[in-house]
């Protein structure tokens, strides 16, 4: 209602009408230029985490479900992708698909358990299930325990393109990231996505309108877990490593932090958050354990003072949707 009274909104500017398109163009250009100005490996890793955070945001931002166990899908996809590439000799595209499928299957199982409870319980259940799968990863032989799966071959994409070439690898990661990003955008703006938002706003009402909200929530959960799987699988190929760090609970916390910093329920927020948090970790690596304290402080500051996140604040300032 306030917006209507605001003089700014009376003259629709190009920015306001096409905010998301412009945002997308800026992001694509930045990502194409990035490997020439900074470390390609860093940007690739950041894109994997950005996709991970976008997948997580699909649940928290658009269905209102806080999953505190997304490391499960990311980490196990990472393991299966690394294992299939290294031991079974899968080419990278198949390895990433294997990881993605792992995410989907785990999402189906964990999701159908977790959606039986709401709100705070949902968060605790997802966290507990993820911890259970972490213990499996610790005990299972194929994960390599503390060592993880190291020296995963990047292989040849479609048997043709050698991914040991950094730029070829970069191009593949960029395509996967943008594909995942646009897929999520499509989901959010589809009729299915509208129902998800209705569930977020008022689940009881959505049920009374005849929607089987549990099914919608489960599908959203599986989609989110699948894309988190794609992110984890790609990360395993890029860094040639899958380890316990990827499945442990701090990883689940990290993706929450990235999304929170960037802006819950914004399309670009998780991407911005992932880059900010990863950059921070790289810069602050020398101070060791203080990183944990700083991350905690960012959590506290975001929740108390900065709930819209970076992109959410920006969108609010410019009065556009991002």
């Amino acid at each position, binding site marked *: 209602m306030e917006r209507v009274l605001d003089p700014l909104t009376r003259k629709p500017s190009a920015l306001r009408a096409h905010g998301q398109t412009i945002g997308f163009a800026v992001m694509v250009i930045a990502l194409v230029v990035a490997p020439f100005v900074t470390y390609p490996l860093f940007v690739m890793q950041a894109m994997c985490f950005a996709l991970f955070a976008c997948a997580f945001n699909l649940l*928290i931002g658009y269905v209102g479900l*806080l999953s*505190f166990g997304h490391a499960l899908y990311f980490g196990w996809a990472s393991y299966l992708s690394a294992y299939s590439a290294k031991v079974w000799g899968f080419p990278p595209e198949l390895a990433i698909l294997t990881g993605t499928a792992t995410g989907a299957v785990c999402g189906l199982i964990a999701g159908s*358990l*977790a959606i*039986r*409870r*709401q*709100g*705070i*319980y949902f*968060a*605790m*259940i997802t*966290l*507990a*299930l993820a*911890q*259970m799968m972490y*213990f*499996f990863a*610790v*005990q299972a032989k194929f994960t390599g325990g503390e060592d993880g799966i190291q020296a995963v071959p990047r292989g040849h994409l479609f048997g043709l393109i050698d991914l040991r070439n950094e730029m070829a690898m970069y191009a593949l990661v960029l395509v996967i990231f943008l594909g995942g990003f646009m897929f999520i955008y499509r989901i959010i703006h589809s009729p299915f996505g509208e129902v998800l938002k209705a569930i977020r706003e008022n689940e009881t009402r959505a049920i009374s309108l005849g929607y089987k909200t549990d099914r919608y929530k489960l599908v959203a959960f599986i989609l989110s877990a699948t894309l988190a799987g794609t992110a984890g699988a790609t990360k395993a190929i890029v860094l040639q490593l899958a380890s316990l760090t990827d499945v442990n*609970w701090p990883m689940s*916390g990290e993706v*929450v932090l990235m999304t*929170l910093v960037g802006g819950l329920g914004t399309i670009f927020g998780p991407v911005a958050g992932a880059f900010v948090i990863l950059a921070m970790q790289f810069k602050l690596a020398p101070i*060791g*354990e*203080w*990183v*944990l*304290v*700083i*991350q*905690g*402080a*960012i*959590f*506290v500051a*975001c*929740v*108390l003072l900065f*709930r819209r996140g970076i992109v959410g604040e920006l969108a609010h300032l410019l009065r556009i949707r991002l």
Partner: protein
Amino acid sequence: MFEIFGIPSQALFGQLLIGLINGSFYALLSLGLAVIFGMLNIINFSHGAQYMMGAFAAYLILQYSGLGYWPALIIAPILVGATGIIVERLFLQWLYKLDHLYGLLLTFGLALIFEGVARNYFGSAGLPYTVPESLQGGRNLGFMFLPNYRAWVIVASLTVCIATWFVIERTRLGAYLRAATENPTLVRAFGINVPRMITLTYGFGVALAAFAGVMAAPIYNVSPQMGSELIIVVFAVVVIGGMGSILGAIITGFGLGVIEGLTKVFFPEASNTVVFVIMAIVLLVRPAGLFGRRG
């Protein structure tokens, strides 16, 4: 020595005892979580970190003032409870009108801060804390050896749990608390200072966690990460029991500790995960939890 199901009785009862000890901590912590959730509508993710702080407080009290276990058992919960009150006044009180999830996120951030600070000053390796002299040794019960300290932990935590249940369910103060949980506005209209009650409830819940931490110090080493792993299991315990019932939290805590102990005897590979598996089964069979109301 005799055997039960092909397992030597020593091993069986030994693991049962460890199960009861773990169960004591599950019960104390899930009780604190339930009390806090009832009043504040916040899941206190920093509960594990505050348990760890209790253990460290006992360690530091010994290092700097020379006061041993018994004074620490009183002083540490009061100190850590006081930090809880500060946390509630500084941070949590601004969140009550927001979605529950923000409380979870904020206390998760606090847990990271507490654990990070502890790691910086004390390293990741555990620090030893000796069993108090009056409880050293143990007695032979014929079928097993019972260390005195472990017997004390079980008795003490049972006593504290039941005392808490009694205060909340059977006293006037508890009646105010339960009323304020149901309808804070109405209770305020009767002239009861609900915000102060909320603050003190959080302080009390945190003190319970710290009390558990002091009792845990001589059994496990005092280490920065002792809380974070425990809290996730306690979350599963809370999901299984449901947070609606104080007695339910206590029974579920002890019960799961015992089941975990028995799993260690019969199927050791699954001992880490059995609580989570039970949680999954409970969600399938009784989605609202064993003692919970639907929600």
